[in-house]
């Protein structure tokens, strides 16, 4: 399957026999990967919807700890995971730096004559905690699912069939097109193309994108014909079937209770305040 998506998260999925043996060996510790994908998807969805409702710092820290626990349990490769979490943080860093200055409130300190407010800082910390808690739950629970299995799981969760088909096609061809892109890039390099801040660069990359689109369009025509030859009538048969085991139920119940208690504490605190 797609190396690109592989890099992204499922770094140690079952690919070779040796790894398979290893996974069996460590199966007790890899329990997260044996959970039903549907359970994992729903859990993360509910978890992220609830976490963004939380405002109390202790509760946010608690949810972050829970996510961290899952992250450690899933035994993801250390460095890429940290890198991924950092990417997310780099997205918000601008917002976080701006917030204390753009929110009005009690002055905490001032920088170059700009007052930084305590409220703004608090809000920034809340956002940081929420985002990190959700990312750290997503990585072990969903990013470890095979992209195709993910599509099948969505289908069995009653996501519209066409959307699932579109997803499966996209997943199937991302890697193919990435290779194609690299090939075109190599061809450009052979002709001494070096990207710089020039109109020439933008034009060349524009042609590159255009060529990529044209080639993929032609490819898609061939794909459709080939599929028709094999009797494609607009219906993929999704063969994977999922079944809930006792472990899945236990995990779902536990996480449900955890999320429920977080929400209850939040509501109680708001009611008290």
């Amino acid at each position, binding site marked *: 399957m797609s190396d690109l998506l592989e890099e992204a*998260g499922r770094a140690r999925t079952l690919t070779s026999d040796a790894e398979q043996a290893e996974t069996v060996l460590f199966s007790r510790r890899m329990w997260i990967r044996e959970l039903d994908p549907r359970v994992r998807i729903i859990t993360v969805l509910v978890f*992220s919807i609830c*976490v*963004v409702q939380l405002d109390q710092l202790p509760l946010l820290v608690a949810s972050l700890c829970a996510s961290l626990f899952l992250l450690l349990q899933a035994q993801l490769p250390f460095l890429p995971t940290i890198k*991924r979490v950092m*990417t*997310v943080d780099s*997205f918000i860093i*601008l917002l976080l730096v*701006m917030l204390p200055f*753009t*929110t009005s409130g009690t002055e905490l300190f001032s920088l170059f004559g700009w007052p930084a407010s305590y409220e703004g800082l608090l809000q920034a910390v809340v*956002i940081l905690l*929420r*985002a990190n808690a*959700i*990312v750290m739950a*997503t990585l072990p629970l*969903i*990013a470890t699912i095979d*992209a195709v299995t*993910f599509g099948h799981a969505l289908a069995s969760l009653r996501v*519209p069939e*066409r*959307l699932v*088909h*579109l*997803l499966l*096609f*996209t997943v*199937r*061809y*991302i890697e193919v*097109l*990435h290779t194609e892109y690299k090939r075109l890039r190599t061809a450009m390099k052979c002709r001494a193309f070096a990207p710089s*801040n020039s109109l020439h*660069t*933008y*034009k060349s*990359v*524009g*042609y*590159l*994108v*255009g*060529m*990529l*689109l*044209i080639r*993929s*369009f*032609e*490819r*898609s*025509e061939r*794909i*459709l014909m080939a599929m028709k030859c094999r009797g494609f*009538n*607009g*219906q993929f048969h999704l063969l994977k079937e999922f079944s809930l085991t006792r472990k899945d139920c236990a995990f779902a119940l536990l996480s449900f209770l955890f999320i429920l208690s977080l929400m209850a504490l939040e509501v109680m605190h708001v009611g008290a305040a």
Partner: protein
Amino acid sequence: MHIVDGALSSEVVIAGAVLSACGLVMGLRKLEMELIPAAGVLSATFFVASLIHVPLGFSSVHLILNGLAGIILGWAAFPALFVGLLLQAVFFAFGGISVLGVNTFNIAAPAVLVGLMVHPLIVRACGARSAALAGGVAGAMAIALTTLCVALSLALSGYNFVAQAKLVFLAHIPVMIIEGLLSAAAIYLIFKVKPELLHVMSQTSRERNVK
């Protein structure tokens, strides 16, 4: 362009999810089974294109190309871009799951809007140059609208709108220019080499077979 989890108020998140769901329904309705391979492959192309980094000043930016996606895919750009964002959110942890609706709307709605507006112009353009011009305007406009949507979703969540909007907008002016130039070049090439690509989504299965 991605907004992360937890930065928006619940109202905005819900509104984004509902609007995106409407867009998805519209897009999927246009997407016949016959068109799915083409849409899927093109959606994968836009995913790959979003990994391309172009130099800009001392750093580089990655492409979004939602204008181009809108021109080529029309309404189908909605599900196609959604799939890309979903994969990014799930496997790269870019953006987030709870804000997927908002992010999809911010990127796909301008794409569809610009696409529907500019597509007839490009199809009827008398030369590749005017088609490229229209494509360039569409590419830049899509980014401008996306920026506006991002600023608006931050503003509706209670952030200081003027400051945020200015900041986001100013930061993206160079991106708009680059996306405009790139889209223009890409449309120029497509117009010259493979104009059928511009009609990919309006083809019905019968026309395809006749051809």
